[in-house]
């Protein structure tokens, strides 16, 4: 097994606005199973960060435990990282985000990490509206412990063990919509054309952005009868709309059909362009998004694409009215103003 990637890259590798090639955004060589969907998601994150010309030292990647949570080792080697306790990534992210609002946060989790042990953490991170891109690599099983059904495994779906799942599944996108998430999307690891612009849009969104990515477990859950296999997903995939992300300061060059497309303008000036829209669906109307999602579930579709976005959202810092400055840039006199200030506060509360 090869653990070291060759140092050579294509001699004509393109560079981004910062002059970096994609190599600068790569991580260590993956130790996940060959063909794991998670590696494709890592690849999409690398490509999205490269195309967005993200400065790697301005990114923090956080994760919990599981196959998915190993992946931050496999991308953005030049960024900050925190591999936290199982299911507790949202808490660590909350603390980091409150302390340093200047970083871009990428949370990586799996269906076990977020839908089971970390469910309590997950829902509160949404409620609080952290400014984070929260990616769930969702394979419907516990791959790291040999493929037991997870809480997102669909009712009746069979893993490699061959026993139909007898429990109802948790739909992470539906749950996020219910809880008031301001950006909800779903994608498929085998569809980078959709996943990459979605990650870029999520990184530009100033609030909690969930992308639930169907990411097949090639070892334990890619068999016939599984609803999270490559084949099943390809056969049942539906999209709300084709997603194109146009970052700030770039011209819209693509040609779109009139009538069947809309632009969603983000606060930072970038634009999400949606074309080939699904019927009776408005990405900025939570009600219609929920309807579309329930309809998909009822008809056995794997609905992907941007499902809902609220461009007027207020993230946790603005809700709490905290300082604009990251704590590590504040001086001691601001961070610890002394006992007389405390006395004043206490006096005001008496």
């Amino acid at each position, binding site marked *: 097994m090869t653990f*070291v*990637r060759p140092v050579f890259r*294509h001699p*004509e590798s393109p560079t981004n606005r910062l002059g970096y090639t994609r190599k600068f955004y790569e991580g260590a060589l993956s130790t996940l199973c*060959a*063909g794991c969907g998670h*590696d494709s998601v890592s690849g999409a994150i690398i490509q999205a960060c490269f195309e967005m010309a993200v400065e790697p030292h301005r990114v923090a990647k956080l994760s919990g435990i599981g196959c998915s949570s190993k992946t931050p080792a496999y991308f953005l080697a030049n960024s900050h990282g925190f591999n936290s306790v199982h299911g507790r990534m949202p808490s660590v992210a909350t603390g980091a985000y409150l302390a340093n609002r200047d970083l871009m946060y990428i949370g990586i989790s799996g269906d076990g990490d977020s839908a089971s042990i970390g469910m309590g953490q997950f829902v509160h991170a949404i409620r609080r509206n952290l400014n984070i891109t929260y990616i769930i690599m969702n394979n419907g099983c516990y791959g790291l412990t040999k493929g037991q059904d997870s809480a997102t495994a669909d009712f009746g779906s069979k893993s490699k063990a061959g026993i139909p799942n007898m429990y109802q599944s948790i739909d992470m996108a539906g749950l996020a919509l219910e809880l008031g998430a301001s950006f909800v999307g779903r994608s498929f690891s085998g569809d980078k054309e959709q996943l990459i612009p979605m990650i870029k849009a999520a990184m530009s969104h100033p609030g909690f952005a969930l992308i639930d990515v169907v990411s097949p477990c090639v070892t334990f859950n890619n068999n016939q009868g599984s609803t999270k296999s490559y084949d099943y997903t*390809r056969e049942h995939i539906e999209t709300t709309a084709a997603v194109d992300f146009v970052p700030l300061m770039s011209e819209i060059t693509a040609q779109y059909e009139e009538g069947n497309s809309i632009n969603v303008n983000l606060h930072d000036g970038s634009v999400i362009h949606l074309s080939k829209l699904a019927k009776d669906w408005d990405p900025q109307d939570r009600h219609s998004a929920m309807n579309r999602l329930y309809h998909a579930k009822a008809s056995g579709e794997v609905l992907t694409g941007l499902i809902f976005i609220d461009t007027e959202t207020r993230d946790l810092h603005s809700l709490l009215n905290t300082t604009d400055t990251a704590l590590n840039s504040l001086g001691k006199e601001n961070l610890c103003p002394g006992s007389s200030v405390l006395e004043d506060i206490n006096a005001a509360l008496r």
Partner: protein
Amino acid sequence: MNPTNIKDPEYFHKVVDCQYACPAHTPVPEYIRLIAAERYTEAYMINWESNVFPGVLGRTCDRPCEPACRRGRVEEEPVAICRLKRVAADYKGDVKNLMPKGPFTPNGKKIALIGGGPASLTVARDLAPLGYEIHLFDEQPAGGGMMRSQIPSFRLPESVLNEEVGYILDLGIHAQFRTYVSSMKDMLGKGYDAIFVGTGAPRGRDLNDLPGRQEAGDHIQIGIEFLANVAFEHTSKIGKKVLVLGGGNTAMDCCRTSRRLGGEDVKVVVRSPKAEMKASPWEIEDAVHEDIPIYENHVPKSFVVENGKLKGMMFELVRAEYDEKGKRKLIPTGEPDVFFEADDVLIAVGQENAFPWVERDLGIEFDKWEVPILNKESFQSTLPHVFFGGDAAMGPKNVITAVAQGHTAAVSIDLFCQEKSLTEGRPSPLTNLIHQKMGIHEWMYDSSVASDLRYQVPHADKVKSLKDRLMEVELGYDDQLAFKEAQRCLNCDVQTVFSTSRCIECDACVDICPTDCITFTENGEEEDLRNRLSAPAHELDQDLYVSEELPTKRVMVKDENVCLHCGLCAERCPTAAWDMHKYLYNTAKAGGMKYA
């Protein structure tokens, strides 16, 4: 695009760029791996089968393989293929008992070889084991042709040449040295079943029209004649001030030989800009290292002779200009002419093949440049049982080309003697595609890609080597350096073989490929496809490997150009849709013989 036909023996052959570029198609990566494994004898035999003179070529080859080496596309310098070949020759064990051993059962056919150089010797090597009675004629006292007369001993020790020429002569060749064939007509009358002409390009060009040429007498010599005279010890010294005219490898050998025979102020003067010199870059480098300056853009104008004695030469200064077609013109700059003092001048401005001994009424036709008219595929002349090869056939090239043509001519002669067609049904190459999987994620080849830069070959001390023309300048790699250099090889013969039916389109290969070779996309015409791949694919001579249509209506397209053959696509492939297979390709030798 249509799905790539990987059953075509040339498709994967082309991916092994070094082997494809080698005129004799030596399986380069195969022998480099053997060198890394310290299996020098086997490495030598693989070379011996293809190029017949591994020890000679490992020192003197023109290296068409190295500019083709894929390593040079992702890094600064190609693998030192040539010098690794020498390692195989230097460290090999006993090879004699691995070679065909006579006496061979005679097949009743007699072949004459005229000229004892690389082309003729190759024909001899290929035909003797098949039972042909081979008569070789050469005017020199020993075999080897220009390898003996024109390549100086400080580049190619005589012992190495003798050894490899000996392997061939020992196959029972009837060699008649010191025998100049002065009439083809006589030869034709001797009843040979076929005659092969490998007489090289023995005529060096002169500058007869230059003023002063005749008056200067024997202080002006033709380069290749000078080298031959040195090699056969007719010449042992030269003046202190030497001018060498010409920019090819012969000029480099002349100037470096002059330095060893007493030349202290040796200059090379070329008409063209340095960048257009025909000499191999490493030969130029070695000359410069021996304190020989090279003057570019100097066109010889006259020899300056005073009182019957050569004083030097006048040169006109020019600059090169190119028209739209890239054709060069040398335009005088108008600056005053330059005078260089000289005791001796060596003219190395080209050489040509010459056939004063071939009568023109025998049915062997020549074109207007006095070059024999040949079938390009079989090297058969217009007289059916006369064949040409090497420099004699197509004009001066190099040793490895002569060897390759020797193999081809040998196949032709063998077919001719069996009264078979020389063009249709020529034997196809012997190929083999061998699975390299040894276990999960384990390959039979060392797949990791070394990031080392090219290792320098150690040289002998300059002061010492300049004093002794027989002392070899290059010392060759030792086993440690050879190993490290061998590890730089990318194993391009280990092919990435794709199976459409197995692919589940998980993208793992696309994500892992360090050089972005792989793309899954909608099919299209080649020009369109090349613009839609993960990375630019401008190198049109590098093929695209296209799969059949996949379930998602896409195809897999792989640009072969900068594939590192690291095997990561196959390691990350969950279904073995990608697999690594070693591709062996050997051109057919006469009689289907295998030597390694």
